């Protein structure tokens, strides 16, 4: 029973992390219709801020990471994504792939292709006991952060004018524009939030692994994409649900998979969405893409 409780908390924590990734991707998708491949590189660059500013107090370094995530997201939007805003889905996806490749290799050239270790506060790797269950502090941080982000996003989207504009843009971009919603502003805000979410994820990953590498964004972005697909495109709730589901699956497989199959955990985790798509081609929560416009 204790072991089960422990595993469930682990699963929830990993799922929360994945949900944060999926949220960042969905946010941009809803206002712009673009699946942003470079989101993983936003995560990576924010993480590198921790490496670069390792001399600062950790809290200050985290602040720098946050700024870095927001800044790179805004720059990428202005330089690369705005010119292809009206291109089709595939063209936008390839554009974001190009941005991802550029950012990844800029870091490779500027720092190194190999992973660099980053010192993290000792408190984060300790555990706190709740009854018989001992929970790593990092999981508390992850769960707490996710709760704050979800609450904050909910407040922003449903309680503010900006949120209303964003929801309107997500519903019908052209119409929102005609009604006076400033497209550039809404999209920039979405990218800024997405960059901040990426930074949060980057920090959490560094806290967990203690290192940064140029390719560290690849798996998270795929996780986020798959979570978004599972959850049904363009739905905040779906993205969170998809992230939780994928994280829980990955975490539980890590515990319960027989030893011989353990190395293939990622393969199994990423095959799982395909199985879902066989039965639900438009994801579990069914947002339909390219639905017949007749």
């Amino acid at each position, binding site marked *: 029973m204790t072991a089960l409780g422990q595993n469930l908390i682990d699963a929830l924590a990993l799922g929360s992390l994945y949900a944060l990734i999926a949220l960042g991707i969905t946010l941009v998708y809803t206002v712009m219709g673009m699946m942003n491949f470079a989101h993983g590189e936003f995560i990576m660059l924010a993480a590198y801020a921790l490496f670069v500013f390792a001399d600062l107090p950790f809290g200050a370094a985290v602040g720098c990471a946050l700024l870095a995530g927001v800044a790179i997201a805004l720059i990428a939007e202005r330089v690369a994504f705005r010119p292809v805003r009206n291109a089709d889905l595939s063209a936008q996806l390839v554009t974001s*792939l190009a941005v991802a*490749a*550029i950012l990844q290799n800029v870091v490779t050239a500027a720092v190194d292709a190999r992973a660099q270790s980053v010192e993290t506060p000792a408190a984060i790797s300790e555990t706190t006991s709740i009854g018989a269950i001992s929970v790593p502090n990092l999981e508390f941080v992850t769960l707490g952060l996710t709760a704050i982000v979800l609450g904050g996003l909910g407040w922003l989207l449903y309680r503010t004018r900006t949120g209303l504009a964003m929801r309107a843009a997500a519903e019908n971009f052209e119409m929102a524009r005609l009604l006076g919603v400033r497209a550039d502003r809404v999209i920039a805000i979405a990218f800024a939030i997405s960059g901040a979410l990426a930074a949060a994820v980057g920090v959490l990953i560094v806290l967990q692994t203690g290192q940064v590498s140029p390719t560290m964004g690849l798996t998270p972005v795929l996780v986020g*994409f798959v979570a978004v697909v599972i959850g049904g495109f363009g739905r905040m709730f779906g993205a969170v649900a998809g992230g939780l589901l994928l994280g829980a699956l990955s975490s539980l497989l890590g515990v319960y998979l027989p030893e011989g199959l353990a190395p293939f955990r990622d393969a199994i985790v990423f*095959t799982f969405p395909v199985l879902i798509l066989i039965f639900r*081609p438009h994801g579990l929560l069914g947002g339909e*893409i390219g639905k017949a416009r007749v």
Partner: protein
Amino acid sequence: MSGMRFRTPRSAAASLLVPLALIAITALLGANGTPSLQDTVTTILCNLIIVIGLQVFVGNSGVYSFGQLGFATAGAYIAAFLTLPAAFALLQTPGLPHFIVDAHLGALPSILIAAGISGLLAIVVGLPLMRTSTLAIPISTFAFLIVVYNVVANWDRVTGGSSGLVSIPSTTSVQSAALWAGAAVILALAYKWSASGYRLQATREDEVAARSIGIGVMRERLIAFGLSGVLCGIGGALAVHQSGVLNPATFYFGATVTTMTMLVVGGARSVFGATIGAIAIATVNELLRGVENGASLLGAISIGEAPGLAAIGLGLILLATMIAMPNGLSGGREAGELFWLQRLGLSAAAPAPSSATTVEKQAIDRPAKGALRAQGISLAFAGLRVLKGVDLTLEPGEALGLIGPNGAGKTTLVNVLSGFQAPDSGTVSLDGVDVTGRSPTHLARDGLGRTFQAALPFPELSGVESVAVGAMGMGVSRRRAIAVAADVLGRLGLLEQARLPAGALPPGSQRLLGIARALAIEPRYLLLDEPAAGLDEAECEQLVTILRDVLSDFGCGILLIEHDMNIVMPLCSRVQVLDDGMTIRIGAPREVQADPAVVESYLGSSFLAGVDA
């Protein structure tokens, strides 16, 4: 025969020969160079085959796949397993079954087997993936790539794990790589110009319109996905036989970005584009790598090595292409379709044929009896009841007008009849067979043609291709499809424009082309959704003449949604009036026009009447 063709022999020859010549020139430059240049050129040619493999799927379907390098990985490992000398195999891959270790095949059989298995893998993987949407495919194929990497990197006893395999016999020469690349070009063009290739290109141009002419989107994508898997498998197998070493990262994210850049920069829609993209980007890549290493050669200068520089350059090129030149260097055209080549006289645009021969009807066997019948169709969108128990009968050979105010449910009814929308209740039967819930593709093959309120052209296909692909959707041969297209285009007076890309035609012609496309499936029932919208007066008169001819010559039943009574009156023997999701009147055009209830519904007073009731 009519002499109608998709392209002239000269244009076809140029489209085929120019890429082959480029490959030959590249190979000749390499074959006479230093061993290191030979290696470089062989690598370029292997990559070229993979890029052409990508083109077959991405270019023709318009759907991006980030997983094709997974098939190159599969091909490479299989080719390596089949040729690895026994001593090395025991050391590196102890878990490999004996019959594979003992195979000791030559290069050619190993490549062929690798190609076959990669293709088979692509079909197996594609079966579920192709069911998903246009945006989910890139993501799920990317997931597939990661799954392949994960399996190969961790299955140590069979694949050698992340350290990979060495001492694989190096047998690929510049010449053999060039021959395979040439074969890839021929195969890719043969596919692109086949009926199946055209059907897939139609789905790229407009998925909805493609389904309306009987094209199975999933099936066509799967065929191209499989063929792409074969070509990528060949590219991977050849590459491993060149380098002699292989590890899980050989064909992973970096190679995916590189090959995707090659395809996009060249222009994904054409094999010519894939060829020039692969050669051009490989050349740029070599130059950039030269700079990378050059900096390290000048050790005295503090620049040092700049790993990643080449990749940054490629990324910037890809980004710039997407922003400034989304159709790539080739503009998405084959060599024979390029304007400047036509100027040089290498390939001439085909003259429009002066006359068309009629094609015998009823080549597609369909029961001649029955009618299109809808009974008690009801449908609500999120609680809003759009159709409330509508009945409709359309006999072959008759024209039924469907009129009513905006929002009456006319288009929704046509969507239900043609399978684009499933009704909440009620049945649709076609010639006595219940077809409720059948897909548009299926219904089109059953003889149901339709047009849309928007013209939905296939912009990049020519007029004749756009129409012929309708016949191809019925599974008839290419030759016959072209004959049908020439016949239909002739009847609609579109022959003069048939050579031009459909997207370049004026709106009126695009609309007629939509009707021609629906007629090419030789429908028994034709549903026209406001065919006269946007036509001028002369074009409207022409439309009436055309539809009258269609009625008499094709013998199909026509359901005509139209506001313009000048079109409905002369054509339709019966008119059905919809208002607020219900039929309020069926009768002869004159009676219906005189009916006060109908007049009222058009004036909008039915709203008040509805409140009273």
